[in-house]
């Protein structure tokens, strides 16, 4: 039982990270109906930005408090990836809006290749390890909870609440939901659609940067290729939860995290990704629009 709870905690931590990335996928999909394949690499960029900030700060201020360090890493990472995603949307996606469906998908895949290879070329192909940031560990009976796990879950929850507030209670959120429902009508009613879409990309990227920073903190390593597998899993989470639905993305992320850690614990680590993908396929067979997704009504 204790072992099970331990795995539950691990899965929850991992699931929070996937959930944060999945929100970026699902929001972009909801608002312009495209799979932003480069989102996983935005997540990787966020991790790298945090890593570089960490190196700079620790070399200038040796005894910097960890809380401040983390805060700066998060903020700079969010700013950085926000800028990147804004530019990417402007350069690679906006000119193709209204073009046929596969065109932005191809530029997104191209962007993903460009981003990971850009980091490989500028920062080198080797994985970059950093010393552990947060090392405190708590024991509850036989269950171990590390402070970084608590941090990850708390930061995710706070961000999710902030996010829910923005989408549901602010004028910006209203503009986003309007654009999502009907872009043309929203534009006619005075919503600046271009600006709303840009902000959506920035918000998604900021969440991905937070996830990237926490991934770096959790595993202590960053590599140029780190965007792909978490990116695919987050996208899987978004689809599993029902793409376009925000609570669905979080639910999907948590599910994927739980499946992964439980499968590794009870069956085999080698096949944990196979299990994740197989469960995705099975869920979609019985519920083709994901768990919380609205069925698409087609008018003839």
């Amino acid at each position, binding site marked *: 039982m204790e072992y099970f709870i331990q795995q539950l905690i691990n899965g929850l931590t991992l699931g929070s990270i996937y959930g944060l990335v999945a929100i970026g996928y699902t929001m972009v999909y909801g608002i312009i109906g495209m799979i932003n394949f480069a989102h996983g690499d935005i997540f990787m960029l966020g991790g790298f930005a945090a890593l570089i900030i960490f190196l*700079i700060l620790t070399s200038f201020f040796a005894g910097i408090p960890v809380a401040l360090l983390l805060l700066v890493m998060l903020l700079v990472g969010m700013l950085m990836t926000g800028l990147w995603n804004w530019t990417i949307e402007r350069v690679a996606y906006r000119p193709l809006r209204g073009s046929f469906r596969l*065109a932005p998908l191809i530029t997104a895949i191209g962007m993903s290749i460009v981003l990971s290879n850009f980091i490989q070329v500028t920062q080198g192909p080797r994985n970059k390890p950093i010393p552990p940031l947060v090392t405190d560990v708590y024991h509850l009976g036989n269950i171990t909870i590390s402070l970084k796990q608590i941090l990850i879950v708390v930061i995710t929850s706070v961000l999710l609440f902030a996010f829910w507030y923005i989408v549901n209670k602010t004028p910006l959120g209203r503009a986003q939901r309007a654009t999502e429902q009907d872009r043309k009508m929203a534009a006619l009613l005075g919503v600046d659609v271009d600006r709303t879409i840009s902000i959506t990309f920035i918000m998604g990227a900021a969440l991905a940067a937070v996830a990237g920073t926490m991934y770096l903190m959790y595993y202590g390593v960053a590599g140029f290729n780190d965007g792909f597998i978490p990116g695919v899993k987050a996208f899987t989470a978004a689809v599993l939860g029902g793409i376009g639905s925000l609570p669905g993305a979080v639910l999907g992320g948590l599910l994927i995290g739980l499946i992964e850690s439980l499968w590794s614990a009870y069956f085999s680590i080698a096949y944990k990704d196979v299990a994740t993908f197989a469960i995705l396929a099975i869920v979609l067979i019985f519920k083709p629009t994901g768990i919380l997704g609205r069925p698409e009504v087609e008018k003839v």
Partner: protein
Amino acid sequence: MAYTAENNSSSLMAKAVKEGIFAGVIAFGMFLLFVGIETYQDINNQLTWRTRWGLLAVFVAVAAIGRFLTVGFIKPHLDKRKLAKAKSGVLDISTDKSFFHRNFLKIALLFLLCYPFLAMLIFGRQGSLKYVDNFGIQILIYVMLAWGLNIVVGLAGLLDLGYVAFYAVGAYSYALLSANFGFSFWLLLPMAGILAGFWGIILGFPVLRLRGDYLAIVTLAFGEIIRLVLINWTDVTRGTFGISGIAKASFFGIWSFDVGAANNFNKAWGLPSSSVYYKIFLFYVILALCLITAYVTIRLRRMPIGRAWEALREDEIACRSLGINTVTTKLTAFATGAMFGGFAGSFFAARQGFVSPESFVFLESAVILAIVVLGGMGSLTGIAIAAVVMVGGTELLREMEFLKHVFGPDFTPELYRMLLFGLAMIIVMLFKPRGFVGTREPTAFLKERKAVSGSFTKEGHG
């Protein structure tokens, strides 16, 4: 047009300067951390950093000047041309095409048939190896894969992001069956195709109800599952080490290309011993396979099943209400596409002599899909052109030794191969969203077959 040209151009310049500076500032922000700072492991294996302000300045300058030139000169020029075209009122459709244009396919086929011998004539026996193998065979493998995927994506409109799985099934079928049972290439080639086709059906069944992006993610997941199984099922596949020493293809069992064999091809024909003859043979094999793929695709399009695929792509609901069985239609599309992937895979294994899961990553699926879309979905010629441009272009980059003299001896052009490939994908899509060949041959027509714009064909919703 009331305002004077002078006033217009000075305001344009002001705008260009403003946009240029803005782009520079954005680029500075974007590249500050990733280009301006380099992280590296020092002698103690400790991660540290150093600055690269010079390189950062170059990036910022390129962004600023590039934006300035685009806004100030290139865009007005393009707009003017567009305006002139619109004003003339007559659409520019030239009916008398040039000789080259009319006979493009015949010329291309003739060139391909002569290609290995031309390469040998120009570059000598050993020198031509590179051109036949790296360019000829490599490009033709991608042409075949892209034509195979074209059946699924271009004709049936089912978005498949895991096509490389069938390529892997074909390659491993050949590698394993030839290593364990000693079957020959010519027996295993059709077998690999059939096995891959079965896998196409196995994948097809669960995804029948899925549409659009749900279909995309499940096919992607399927591709990853196959790769992960290949990595982890070490008893059979030897995991990441891969399978080496795969048997070569023989000349239809008559002559062998193994050096020690009694019926060695080179000995039998009194040729000097060189691997180039094997490569030339392989070149013709893959050329034949490509032509078969093209022929089958063209013929199928005129058969009921091909028409059903295209109808499915245009409108699934209409399709069903007219009595087309969408289940079998989708499954045959998956199976046919997968079968060609399997053929290409078994050829790949025979040519390489080595297969490992490394060759079947998602990136390969993405590259094949990119070739299909960049070529203009559904257009065989366009896809072939896209394969030549994209694959040939990146292969060419390996050859650019002279760049070392420009950028210094540390410069390795190969490192930039995928970076440039990705950039090319984006740039081509931005300028030609409908692909290289923007016209389609209609399947059904009245009186005569006329090319229609690619924007009239739908891309399907899976």
